[in-house]
């Protein structure tokens, strides 16, 4: 049978990089085809070419046996729809409006809302959603919003569904539900392209796996009984794929950072933290998990001093720092690796010298009588480049030209070199490749051995489970459960805690 989509020799160049280098890709009818690879391997670019968002520089696209070139509207007309990683939705508008956007049914020049509502209602019912078609998107939770994205594409009669990292924002239970839907679609003859870098999921769902690395197809596997390590090795292209683990056998000291009865409300009076208490002890990594938006960012902001809590106290090494400014907290030994290195972690327009002394720029040896000491700063930079293996930097050049891994190394260097008593690390490995992830892990574990109390906030369950000594799960701003012995729980158990289905009483 003729494949639904055949991409031949696709090459796409961007100013600095060849994102796709003569890539071949074939999709059969009713196939779930996984496209895996590290960040920057070219998966998303290839799919944007297929979706008509990018025109390929070279190569041919055959859809249903005919050679085509088209834009987004053309792709939709050919039955190719894409669900983007960050949802293309307008929260202020209703479900119906979001779904019919750009493809409204019309009657006498007006939008036929009645017909649209009816069709959307049918689709909602089919997906087991009880929301009204007129409810605004902003009233939905993440899992529901993702379903809306899929409905949006199906509404247009898509026969090819491209999903870009659909499970990144879902709990394990929501993922299972999504997979159910995908299997149903497959049974109806819809083809699905599934971009992911979570290998376990890919192996569970895919009929065919294509692995991309550095803009090329590195390997292809048929689904069913594929070896996870084989896929992983194809993905990163070296033999050593083992991520560093916490040996969990270090000696843990007294509590260094302590938060007691933290409360926090947003502008509408909605509680974001409810009576949350936690302790991080010297030489311990406390993992904080949970679906994003359950109070993690408020917790971090309060601990760092960017947000004032409505109630509760924060103590560092026995001293109450609730009223301290950010600088005072840092001076007392608080280090912080922010979630977003591009906005909070670094000054992108500044060079490496400036970024490395941020926060210590007002005192010796970097500053005397208000003047910056060029020589001391340069020496410091040289030391850091050496000990943190920062590559691609040159003096005076803005750090924004660096790769994600090297940016994160600068943040890491700045925060760790100060030898903090407490280190707050928010999503420290997000968006990094395996080499850089291991580098970050190595340094976190080294700090832990050196006696720093580390609070690790992450959306990556695997990371939390392999690095933490102890784990708490946040749900709606309070602690849904504390796990002291990580060997005894499964990811599914944690998933239930994340979804607020179960709670664990605090032990001890």
């Amino acid at each position, binding site marked *: 049978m003729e494949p639904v989509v055949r991409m031949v020799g696709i090459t796409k160049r961007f100013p600095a990089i060849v994102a796709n280098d003569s890539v071949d890709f074939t999709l059969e009818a009713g196939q779930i085809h996984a496209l895996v690879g590290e960040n920057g391997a070219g998966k998303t670019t290839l799919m944007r070419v297929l979706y008509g968002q990018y025109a390929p520089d070279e190569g041919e696209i055959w859809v249903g046996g005919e050679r085509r070139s088209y834009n987004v509207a053309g792709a939709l007309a050919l039955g190719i729809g894409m669900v983007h990683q960050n949802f293309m939705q307008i929260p202020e508008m209703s479900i119906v409006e979001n779904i*019919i*956007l*750009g493809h409204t049914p*019309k009657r006498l020049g007006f*939008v036929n809302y009645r017909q649209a509502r009816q069709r959307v209602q049918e689709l909602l019912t089919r997906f087991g959603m009880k929301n009204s078609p007129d409810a605004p998107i902003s009233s939905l939770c993440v899992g529901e919003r993702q379903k809306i994205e899929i409905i949006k594409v199906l509404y247009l009669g898509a026969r090819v569904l491209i999903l870009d990292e659909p499970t990144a924002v879902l709990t394990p239970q929501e993922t299972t539900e999504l997979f159910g839907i995908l299997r149903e679609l497959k049974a109806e003859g819809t083809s699905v392209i599934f971009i992911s870098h979570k290998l376990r999921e890919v192996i569970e769902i895919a009929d065919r796996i294509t692995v991309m690395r550095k803009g090329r197809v590195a390997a292809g596997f048929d689904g069913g009984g594929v070896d996870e390590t084989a896929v992983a090795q194809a993905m990163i292209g070296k033999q050593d794929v083992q991520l560093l683990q916490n040996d969990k056998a270090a000696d843990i000291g007294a509590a260094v950072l302590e938060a007691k009865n933290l409360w926090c409300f947003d*502008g509408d009076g909605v509680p974001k933290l409810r009576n949350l208490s936690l302790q991080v002890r010297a030489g311990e990594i406390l993992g904080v998990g949970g679906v994003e938006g359950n109070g993690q960012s408020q917790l971090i902001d309060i601990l760092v001093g960017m947000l004032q809590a409505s109630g509760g106290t924060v103590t560092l090494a026995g001293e109450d720092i609730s009223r301290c400014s950010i600088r005072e907290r840092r001076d007392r030994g608080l280090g912080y690796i922010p979630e977003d290195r591009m906005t909070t972690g670094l000054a992108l327009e500044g060079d490496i010298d400036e970024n490395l002394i941020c926060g210590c720029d007002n005192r010796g040896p970097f500053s005397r009588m208000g003047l910056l000491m060029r020589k001391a700063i340069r020496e410091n930079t040289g030391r850091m480049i050496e000990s943190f293996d920062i590559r691609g930097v040159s003096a005076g050049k803005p750090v924004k030209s660096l790769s994600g891994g090297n940016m994160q190394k600068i943040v890491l260097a700045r925060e760790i070199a100060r030898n903090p008593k407490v280190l707050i690390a928010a999503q420290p490995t997000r968006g990094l490749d395996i080499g850089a992830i291991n580098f970050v892990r190595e340094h976190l574990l080294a700090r832990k051995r050196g006696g720093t109390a580390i609070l690790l906030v992450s959306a990556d369950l695997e990371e939390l489970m392999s690095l933490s000594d102890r784990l708490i799960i946040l*749900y709606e701003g309070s602690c849904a459960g504390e796990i002291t012995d990580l060997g005894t729980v499964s990811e599914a158990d944690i998933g239930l805690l994340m979804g607020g289905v179960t709670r664990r009483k605090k032990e001890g």
Partner: protein
Amino acid sequence: MLDFLNLTVRLAAPVLLVALGGLFSLRVNIFNIALEGFMLFGCFASVVGAYLTGSVLGGILFAAAVSLLMTMVYALFVFELDVDPVICAIAVITIAGGLTRYLLIPIFHTSGRYILPPELALPTVNLPWLEAIPVLGPILNNHSILVYLALVLPFLLHIFLYKTDLGLSMRSVGLNAEAAASAGISVKKVRYFALAMNGILCGLAGAQLALSLNLFNVGMTNGRGFTALAALTLTGFEPILTLLACLLFGASDALVLMLSGEGYPVQILSMLPYVLALVVAIVPPIVRRLAKNARRRRAERTLMAPGRECPAQE
């Protein structure tokens, strides 16, 4: 009193027309602060058009055309050349002020002000059946066609925004252009359309202002473009609410006219519309802020009461 309301409607019309024009821009997320400049072009062009063609209609059409042309130039700079919209708007306002002042000299051989012959004034429409309706009649009768257009347009615009395909596209472009583009909507086309409408309406606003007085005066828009922006921001770009806000501004203008006729000091009175615009722009955010704080404090009191366990556990 009825005279006062009739005057209110008449004085509100130019502000309303500019505001509705600006609404198109704001709805596609272009914060067009150049409304003042486009309207001034409209005023001048309407007088030139009426003078050259010898007809009022010629003046109106010329005003719309010139203002449309200017917005298209603005759009070209903003969309194609990526010039900062605010910088571009400042340029438009400055050029509008300077160019209209200068062009008075070569075209009309006068400076500062040009008065058209009275037969080129915008005629008012007298509808006997309308006059017969009590209260509403005397308020709504005896206005120019542009005033009637301004009164009807908000309702048409409401239908356009919420019932038509293009209206939906416009709203989506304004709220999230990336999402709109990924739905296959041509964001650029929608934005050009919106700016074109903006231009035409600013031109009509200028024509109403200048031709109802059959004169052009240097800087005669006198902040109406900015007042319109205040009205829009206040109402969240909702056409019908914008109508009400503009009527409020019209009323303050009318009050100034009537009171100064009775010997109250003009200098103080003429501040009234601007003070009103300022109040209208400042008060809502303050009220919102206070309400937010109150809500938060209420939540704190109820949830953080001592001795209560974590509420999510109940």
